[in-house]
């Protein structure tokens, strides 16, 4: 509804909410965090801060067509097997096997809870979950998000349409978060004994190749409203980050960024190039061919294009109409408008193959290993701040089931922390300073010669695309490009005080671009830090084209020095816990 805008800071009211546990972001992980808290202690006061409306927010807003990790224990598969598979998806590591194993031990129960709550999991003729790959079960998940949200709403007080802007600190300890209501224009202060950050990952650091010359600026696979806020609020408090160079670049349907695994894995459609060659089979059979790790599958079509063998497709022409109908039903559960895209191009996949291309890169720690460095209790290096889902690093391939499990694990860690640490106190000064910072773009005045969030975002996205290994560069990057990118990120940071907003919606965009700049900066530092090529596509260094196990079979880490603002880059060793076989 239209809202009278405040004219100065005195007209902005502040609402303070005190709670035991604050969850920033009511998505997949956050909903399970809230549910777990209520199970553990019904008297605990749990609050969810949600940028959208929890019923349809974030990456799962449109739905989902599969749970990508559910362990078929009845076939003798174990959590260790899942860790081995996850490790193989990132070329043998590094991954945090401690985190991965503890997660794998929890995730089946989460998937079973989703089914109890009403999620349809497809069954085979023996009434067992219907698998379309080694670990992925098919679902009709159009209602996945409302189903999770209903449980979260029973378990927590949900503040919808509140944009998180920064953490509150009590000394070195996180004591909650602040933000503003994008509908009511209030400044919100959530004071909490422990905080879980589960905002989802970062989309829109890089330009999507459809954003030029089309009326679709948000033609992305990952939710474009997940902008990396969860990472940014941690970066600004000096939290340690891991593996931010392991970007999620995925093979997606061209021009529409629809999922491809639905087709290639579930319906046995192989990738094919302009010469009619099954190129994954031809060049990557030693790595699994069409079942090769995802970074290979994302990079391979881009390599075909670069070599002049594009367009590239997934070959759907072997399907009969009935199978195709079933495939399109899958799409309707996850990315319904892709079915419209096919119809708008008069495209029947039975008659012609579906075009495939690499997506713009995302930072999504539920998929790759990017995110906060966390301990086993899922606490970040900032005491009192826990991470779950896409924000938690080191443990890739979590997807829906794993993000749910991690939400629970973070809550358990938070409860223990609260027991030991108790109350927090926060200074009025930091609250006032944040309030001024947050609303500043709104009070610039109409004659102010400033910048719109959109133009700053576009400058960042083009910079990252061309100088930090976006699709226009076929994901490839070198040291000189990264130095160029960092020089301009420094310039963009200097322009932040010029941001202006003429509505609360624009104010949200202003903070989104500030967050994206902070995340983009450490992504560049991580890409610089890994002087080898470990996951071509996810991470390709043209100046260090070989894998260097001697020096880089380890995690690349970063931390902003909050005194100097410098990003410090270092490494941590990789520990293998789960044996081969």
């Amino acid at each position, binding site marked *: 509804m239209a809202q009278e805008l405040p004219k100065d800071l005195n007209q902005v009211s502040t609402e303070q909410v005190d709670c035991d546990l604050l969850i920033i972001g009511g998505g997949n992980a956050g909903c399970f965090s809230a549910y777990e808290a209520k199970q553990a202690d019904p008297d605990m006061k749990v609050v969810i801060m949600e940028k959208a409306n929890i019923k349809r927010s974030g990456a799962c807003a449109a739905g989902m067509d599969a749970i990508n990790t559910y362990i078929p224990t009845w076939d003798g598969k174990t959590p260790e097997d899942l860790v081995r598979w996850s490790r193989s998806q990132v070329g043998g590591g590094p991954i945090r096997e401690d985190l991965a194993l503890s997660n794998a031990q929890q995730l089946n129960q989460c998937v079973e809870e989703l089914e109890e709550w009403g999620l349809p999991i497809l069954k085979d003729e023996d009434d067992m979950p219907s698998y379309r790959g080694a670990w992925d079960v098919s679902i*009709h998940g159009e209602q996945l998000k409302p189903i999770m949200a209903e449980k979260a709403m029973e378990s927590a007080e949900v503040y919808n349409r509140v944009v998180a802007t920064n953490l509150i600190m009590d000394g070195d300890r996180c004591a909650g978060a602040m933000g503003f209501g994008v509908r009511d224009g209030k400044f919100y202060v959530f004071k909490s004994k422990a905080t879980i950050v589960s905002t989802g990952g970062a989309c829109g650091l890089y330009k999507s190749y459809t954003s030029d010359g089309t009326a679709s600026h948000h033609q992305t696979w990952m939710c474009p409203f997940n902008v990396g806020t969860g990472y940014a609020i941690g970066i600004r408090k000096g939290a340690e980050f891991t593996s931010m160079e392991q970007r999620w670049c995925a093979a997606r349907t061209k021009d529409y960024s629809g999922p491809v695994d639905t087709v290639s894995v579930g319906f046995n459609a192989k990738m094919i190039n302009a010469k009619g060659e099954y190129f994954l089979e031809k060049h990557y059979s030693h790595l699994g061919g069409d079942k090769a790790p995802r970074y290979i599958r994302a990079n391979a079509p881009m390599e075909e294009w670069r070599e002049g063998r594009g367009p590239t497709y997934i070959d759907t022409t072997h399907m009969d109409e009935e199978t195709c109908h079933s495939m399109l039903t899958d799409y309707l559960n996850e990315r319904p408008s892709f079915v*419209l895209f096919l119809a708008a191009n008069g495209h029947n996949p039975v008659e012609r193959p579906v075009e495939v291309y690499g997506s713009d890169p995302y930072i999504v720690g539920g998929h790759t290993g990017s995110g906060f460095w966390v301990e086993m209790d899922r606490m970040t290096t900032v005491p009192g701040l826990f991470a779950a889902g896409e924000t938690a690093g080191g443990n890739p391939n979590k997807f829906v089931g794993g993000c749910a499990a991690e939400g629970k694990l973070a809550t358990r860690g938070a409860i223990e922390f609260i027991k030991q640490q108790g109350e927090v106190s926060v200074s009025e000064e930091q609250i006032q300073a944040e309030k001024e910072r947050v609303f500043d773009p709104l009070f610039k005045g109409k004659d102010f010669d400033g910048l719109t969030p959109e133009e700053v975002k576009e400058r960042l996205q083009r910079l990252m695309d061309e100088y930090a290994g976006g699709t226009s560069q076929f994901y490839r990057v070198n040291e000189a490009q990264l130095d160029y990118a960092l020089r301009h990120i420094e310039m963009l940071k200097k322009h932040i005080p010029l941001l202006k907003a003429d509505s609360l919606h624009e104010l949200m965009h202003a903070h989104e671009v500030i967050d994206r700049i902070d995340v983009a900066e450490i992504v560049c530092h991580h890409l610089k830090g890994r002087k080898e090529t470990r996951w071509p596509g996810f991470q390709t260094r043209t100046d260090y084209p070989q894998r260097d196990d001697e020096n880089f079979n380890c995690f690349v880490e970063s931390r902003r020095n909050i005194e100097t603002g410098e990003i410090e880059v270092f490494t941590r060793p990789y520990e293998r816990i789960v044996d081969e076989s």
Partner: protein
Amino acid sequence: MPPRVDWEKCDGCKAQDEPLCEQVCPGNLMTLNKDNKAYCRPLRHCWDCMSCTKVCPVGAIETRMPFQIGYHGAKLIPMVGTNSITWTCEDIYGNVKRYRYKNRIED
């Protein structure tokens, strides 16, 4: 870029404090104009998740492809039932297909 609102059909969800499309849009994009008709703030910011299209109680919202990526005349219309959803898709040549499935297990 998508939601196209038929202002003949849209009644601004009179009975609700906030219209349903405005409630659900994950990007905070849907809102009402001064005549209480829904519109999408910048069309280019839409993610095409179709949440607004599915939730509209009077079927006033249609998700459209921008012409730069899809030709004119295709339609995908959801009909939300109790524990099920039915989609009707018409391609640019007039071929119509229907997809119906359960989206919730009944209690």
